[in-house]
């Protein structure tokens, strides 16, 4: 965690069209029939959310049992912006592919082995492929392009047991897993299950566990038992740089 250089005490509020107006927009559905009682319930909720005053600007019956609301209101909360440390960001330098290759060659003296997969029934491979395939993402080539990284991309719908077996078989330094479907928190369950399986199978000697996907923003790596989470918009270079940082801590680019 690095603390922002800007340390002046700074209290902020949401901004509609003037400083301090604190206006926000909210929408939600309540499982009640449309009508003035429903609107009162919507305002009660807005009040509990700290919006005062709040106005229901739109409400619509969705069938006989549900009502959709759009509410605008003034948030009574203050945000202590100065007190927010810059959230855990990239606490390692971003390396070029050449630097990554050099680091691996220098420190490891052999290829770094990476196994990638989508586990469970998740079939969304576009994200992991963006990180691993030569084609890459956002103009950056994927890990396959790095001469000193050996990539085993197992594709989608891989069972955890199979993943563990394959990782052991090729003596993986790092396992990269993608999870996109979040319904019923599938991504969290699957990841925890995977972490547990590696812990059981490899103990302390387990490979680095890296998980990625667009909706991991509510959890931390330790919640899941993995080493690192990557979110929306991750580029291959960030991942490669992280691997160097985490697996070859002695190396520093000069």
């Amino acid at each position, binding site marked *: 965690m690095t603390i922002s250089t800007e340390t002046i005490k700074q209290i902020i509020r949401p*901004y*509609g*069209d*003037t400083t301090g107006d604190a*206006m926000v*927009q909210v929408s939600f559905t309540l499982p009640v029939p449309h009508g003035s009682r429903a609107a009162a319930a919507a305002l009660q909720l807005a009040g509990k959310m700290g919006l005062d005053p709040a106005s*229901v*600007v*739109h409400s*619509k019956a969705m069938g006989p049992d549900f009502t959709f609301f*759009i509410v*605008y209101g003034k948030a009574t909360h203050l945000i202590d912006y100065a007190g927010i440390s810059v959230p855990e960001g990239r606490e390692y330098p971003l390396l070029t592919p050449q630097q990554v290759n050099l680091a691996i060659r220098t420190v490891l003296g052999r290829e770094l082995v990476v196994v990638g997969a989508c586990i469970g029934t998740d079939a969304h491979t576009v994200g992991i492929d963006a990180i691993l395939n030569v084609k890459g993402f956002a103009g950056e080539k994927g890990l396959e392009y790095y001469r000193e990284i050996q990539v085993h991309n197992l594709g989608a719908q891989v069972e955890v047991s199979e993943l563990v077996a394959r990782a052991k078989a090729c003596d993986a330094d790092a396992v990269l897993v993608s999870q996109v479907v979040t319904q019923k928190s599938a991504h969290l369950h699957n990841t925890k299950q995977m972490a547990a399986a590696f812990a059981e199978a490899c103990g302390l000697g387990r490979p680095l566990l890296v998980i990625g996907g667009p909706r991991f923003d509510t959890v931390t790596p330790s919640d899941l038992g993995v080493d690192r989470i990557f979110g929306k918009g991750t580029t291959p270079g960030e991942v490669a740089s992280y691997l160097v940082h985490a697996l070859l801590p002695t190396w520093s680019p000069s």
Partner: protein
Amino acid sequence: MKLDLDPEVVAKARRLAARAAEPIIELARTHTTVSVERAVLRLAGVTGADADGTPWVNRLVDAVRDQVGLEHGVALPVFHALRDDPRELVRARFTIPSGADAVRARERARAAVGRGIARIDRNRADRNLLLGKHGDPEPPWIYLIVATGDIYEDIPQAQAAAREGADVIAVIRSTGQSLLDYVPEGATRQGYAGTYATQENFRLMRAALDEVSGELGRYIRLTNYASGLCMPEIATLAGLERLDMMLNDCMYGIIFRDINPRRTFVDQRFSRQIHARAGIVINTGEDNYLTTADAVDAAHTVIASQLLNERFGHEAGLADWQLGLGHAFEINPEIPDSFRLELAHAQLVRELFPDAPLKYMPPTKHMTGNIFAGYLLDAFFNLAGVLTGQSILLIGMMTEGIHTPWLSDRDLALENVRYVRRAAGALAEDFRPAPGGFTVTRARQVLAETVDLLDRVADDGLLTAIAQGTFGVTRRPADGGKGLDGVVAHADGYYNPATELLEEGP
């Protein structure tokens, strides 16, 4: 031309509009108003206000009026009374000079006003230079509103809007201003639902936009609102501070501000002469009719009013490229084929006024609290704009039914129009109304109704038509409304150096 309109019908509509406009033009030629006279003084270089904030031009015109009446204009009495220190003027005793005195006063007035007009000319030349230097954006121009009430909050918002893609920035006025019979002075920080139009606010905003134009490599136009009791003066200040477009309608003040019709008609002519000279594009206000009248039933009233605005504009010296005729996307989205009707109307306007920089206004009336529905309707408005080749697109806000635009509303609105232009900007190529189809039929019908209406207006008189609620279903009798007491018929020997110079041309 996609609608294949009958040129004979179009010509007939124009003839009728000219006939309906003629008596009003005669009225405007033979009358002056307090604001016209104040504008003359502003052109002559009178600025500032007294300790109560009353502008010196008001003090002077009121003094002249009290003492000798306004029927000869202010120029002669004021320049006759003018000694070394102009500040003495307010305490001066005014008379109408005659003989050599009159000639001298006339010359001095003409010279002073000439300097004001020269400044307007220089601004016009500067604008042309800057357009060359920074570049003139491709139409449709994206027109965005700022309205914080505080010029110092407006400025960064306007610059941000320009950076996000706005080509024209409009600073909405405080709701009360159009009923003030004076123009406030100085930079202002307190307005309701808008910021006061003042010379200093104009200057500050124009400078800020010049700055951002340089940064963006695109000349950002500035617009404000002339309509109201001070239309001639605000037009003048716009010319003096290089504003680029001005809301300036021949009837908006009458219908939506309850300003006296005669007052408005006299004021609008002078203000348009200024705009013509300043190279300012005017924007007319027909869009407003559709907020009080039904957009389908009253479609022809929009066209009729545009033809009248065109006629009044031409007569005041405005070229076609300065006629930003207004219209709007206001059909009830619940009715069948609403978008097709909109296209028919918009295409009709486009074809009737091929060289006019049409100002197309977004939905407002049928915008509700449902911001998603609003965002959708705005998208179809943007699409209608590009499909029918509109010139100036006001950007609709999804929160139109709720509040004056927030920063994020504006940002989302710009994303909306940017998508539509990028994705479908050139789709007009494939929009070719089927001959004899729905669109063509509807356009012809509206044109036919327009001819009928203008026929009636030409016969009964425009003042009568307005009194009967023809436009915006609002009745405004010729002698009602605010500001009639500021209208004065010319006496023989009325002298107005500004009109004289403006009518002589550059």
